[in-house]
């Protein structure tokens, strides 16, 4: 049986699945129930000076009849007293010594950081996560993403935390930046033992077109919130990979952003995450989803002969390269399986209007014909095809040696003729 035990910069948990700092990790009762369901760790809802929240707080994207594909919130950090939170951390850690509890923290001054870190350690936290990511409310007060967007401030506060802390320190990064790398490196320079990303994306989830008020509505106003849920996963995957593949960046990553199941978690780990954190899917479906995450990942590891997660963390990073290093002579064309094609011709219209006009209606019957001499191998037809496995993209031997654009520029290596450029 594969072993999911995770060691993140010295923070050990029975599996890589942690609750993200968010409503599902708001209290001892919740975190303990989550551990009972199988979660390996929890990043406690951010501690700081307790705040006052508004109602309402959440908004969701409804997509083709499903609610919650994208999600946003304008909730702030904990609204419970620090005493209560620390007591519950202590009690939870006592009861679940093998599970990881990471205290998410957000305060302002150096003295406040010293104080809250000491209290977190006294309560038994296995690690700290500095919340430099929250893009709503707290940033207006000079905290959260206001820190994360300034590498020098990020580095300074991280170095304070490292100075005061005896447990591993993670810095939670905001995606609301042009390039994630300087911010990851700033945290590393400050001494961070790891980073977690992404926090939520600054967003307005929608507008009520009858009342003219954006969502989520607080009376007759709204505010920008933090966007998350399955829809943000590609953005998060990129940011995780952007750090993981940088040669200077060498601390572990806790991946966050739109993870709904074991498959998503495997993707984050293949791109360099040591652990993963989940919030939105738990909010929508409950702690119980973790049973499938554990089972699904173990099954996948067994199928691929992995005994430990270390054997696949970052395994896809080398395959993520700059565009200029892709083999420009690699060529595929679409093949339509006449046996399974149902004749909807959705591929015809997609190719005709949205690609390179190389799939045509047949003269007889409804099975479209691919003009392989013009097909650029873009995948669009395969994406729109409703029949699983009907359209496949198949490699063509065009006789050209593999060549990247960069090699073509520097070495003059020959490039195959363009297709579909009529």
């Amino acid at each position, binding site marked *: 049986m594969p072993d999911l035990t995770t060691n993140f910069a010295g923070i050990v948990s029975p599996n890589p699945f942690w609750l993200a700092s968010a409503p599902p990790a708001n209290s001892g009762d919740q975190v303990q129930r989550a551990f009972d369901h199988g979660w390996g760790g929890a990043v406690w809802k951010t501690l700081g000076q307790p705040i006052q929240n508004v109602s309402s707080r959440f908004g969701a994207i409804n997509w083709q009849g499903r609610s919650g594909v994208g999600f946003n919130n304008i909730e702030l950090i904990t609204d419970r007293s620090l005493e209560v939170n620390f007591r519950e951390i202590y009690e939870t850690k006592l009861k679940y010594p093998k599970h990881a509890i990471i205290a998410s923290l957000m305060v302002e001054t150096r003295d406040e950081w010293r104080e809250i870190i000491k209290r977190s350690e006294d309560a038994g936290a296995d690690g700290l996560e500095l919340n430099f990511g929250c893009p709503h409310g707290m940033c207006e007060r000079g905290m959260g993403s206001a820190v994360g967007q300034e590498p020098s401030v990020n580095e300074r506060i991280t170095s304070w935390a490292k100075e005061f802390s005896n447990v591993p320190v993670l810095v939670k990064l905001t995606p609301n930046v042009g390039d994630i790398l300087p911010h990851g490196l700033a945290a590393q320079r400050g001494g961070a033992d790891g980073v977690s990303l992404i926090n939520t994306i600054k967003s307005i989830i929608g507008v009520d077109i009858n009342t003219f008020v954006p969502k989520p509505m607080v009376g007759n106003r709204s505010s920008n919130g933090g966007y998350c849920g399955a829809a943000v996963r590609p953005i998060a995957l990129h940011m995780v990979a952007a750090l993981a593949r940088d040669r200077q960046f060498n601390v572990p990553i806790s991946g966050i952003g739109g993870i709904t*199941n*074991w*498959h998503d978690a495997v993707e984050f780990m293949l791109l360099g995450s040591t652990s993963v954190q989940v919030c939105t899917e738990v909010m929508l479906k*409950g702690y119980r*989803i973790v049973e*499938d995450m554990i*089972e*699904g990942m173990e*099954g996948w590891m067994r199928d691929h002969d992995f005994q430990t997660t270390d054997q696949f963390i970052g395994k896809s990073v080398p395959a993520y390269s700059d565009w200029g290093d892709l083999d420009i002579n690699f060529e595929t064309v679409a093949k339509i399986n006449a046996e399974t094609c149902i004749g909807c011709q959705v591929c015809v219209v997609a190719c005709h209007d949205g690609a390179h006009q190389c799939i045509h209606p047949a003269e007889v019957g409804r099975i479209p014909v691919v003009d392989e001499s013009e097909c650029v191998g873009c995948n669009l037809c395969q994406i729109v095809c409703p*029949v699983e496995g009907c359209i496949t993209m198949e490699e063509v031997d065009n006789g050209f040696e593999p060549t990247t654009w960069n090699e073509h520029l520097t070495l003059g290596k020959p490039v195959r003729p363009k297709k579909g450029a009529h």
Partner: protein
Amino acid sequence: MDELDQERSEQVFDDFKKAYTANQAIVEANRCLYCSDAPCITACPTGIDIPSFIRKISTGNTEGSARTIFDSNIMGMSCARVCPVETLCVGDCVYNEMGVPPIQIGKLQRYATDIALEEGRTFYKAGADTGKSVGIVGGGPAGLAAAHRLRRFGHAVTIYEKRDILGGLNTFGVAPYKMRADAALSEVEWIMSIGGINVEHGVSIPETHSWDDLLAKHDALFLAFGLGPDTRLDMSGADMDGILGAVDFIEDFKLNAVDLSDVKEAVVIGGGNTALDAVRELRGLGVPHVSLAYRGAESQMGGYAHEWSAGKDEGVVSVFNVQPVAYEGQGQVTGLRVVRTDQAKKPIAGSEYVLPAQLVVLAVGQSKLGALVSGLDGVETQWGRVVTADDGQTGNPRVFAGGDCRNGGKEVVNGVAEGRDAAIAIHSLISEA
């Protein structure tokens, strides 16, 4: 394992409900609301965690999905096909409250369990040998479910079976458009693969084994001997050819090749689910004119409405409010004489007529075998059923019962639930001793 004839009449039947493709299963699984404390779970006699197994299909974890199913119901592959889901899990899906088509739980369960069996996943190992032994009388669904669970606990198990094949009515009584005998037997083989389940075939009690012998040999007994032969109607002409009990008829064409080419008209007597199976089966076997003769009105039939609806679609003719009075013919039956009945199902004088039939199938119930246990101290029967506590224990503390012999004739899933629960109760009993 038991061999089936290669040529069996049941092979002309295709699945009434088609199997899902992977894509169809994932689309349907994603429609599930993943309810908390879901009504579908409560509706399932074995209490399968349906939302969890469906969620696992949606994530591609079909192995975990199957494990969730088998944890509660080791015959989940059969039940996916033969359960009356319309009146159980699917009937209680909360989507029905919204006027939205309910989740096709049976088809999703079939998808996950078929893959698991095809891939040869076994999931369970026999427990370490406890030195305790349990005798199981009857190798149908209840007996098999009990045997498998007891082996997981590490107890020695012997099944005493009358026939030369296992699976009981699940093997030779299920309508072939739901499941054919070969599929049922491959599941039996899969269950037996846990190892250590001994089977004695050709058993007849008390002729081959006495209750005292069995009690002396085992720490506990589980009675799961099902029901007896079809009930016959005591009418003139009852000994003619062409008059069959429904269970006999179904077993015959499922396990053998039967020739119905001389039957142009068949009448099935009854209004329960076995009758509804029989009329559809006769149509599927090519009998041109099939009638269902029932004493009451359509609304009074015991059989499931969805099954009758399918029967009507397949061209079955209904003859409601009639009571059989005699078989017509000489040597070979040629018709069934019936009398019309009133709303209270009482005969109306002078209203007799004959339904032409070269085959009459009796589906008016099976006899109860309660008398079989008369030699077992403390075991009581009521209306021919073995009386037990909720966990299956009879008046004799070492004897438990489950399945049709206890419940009077229910679904496969009820037998599995009763077998599993009795095994758990037996385990706690013999582990204490």
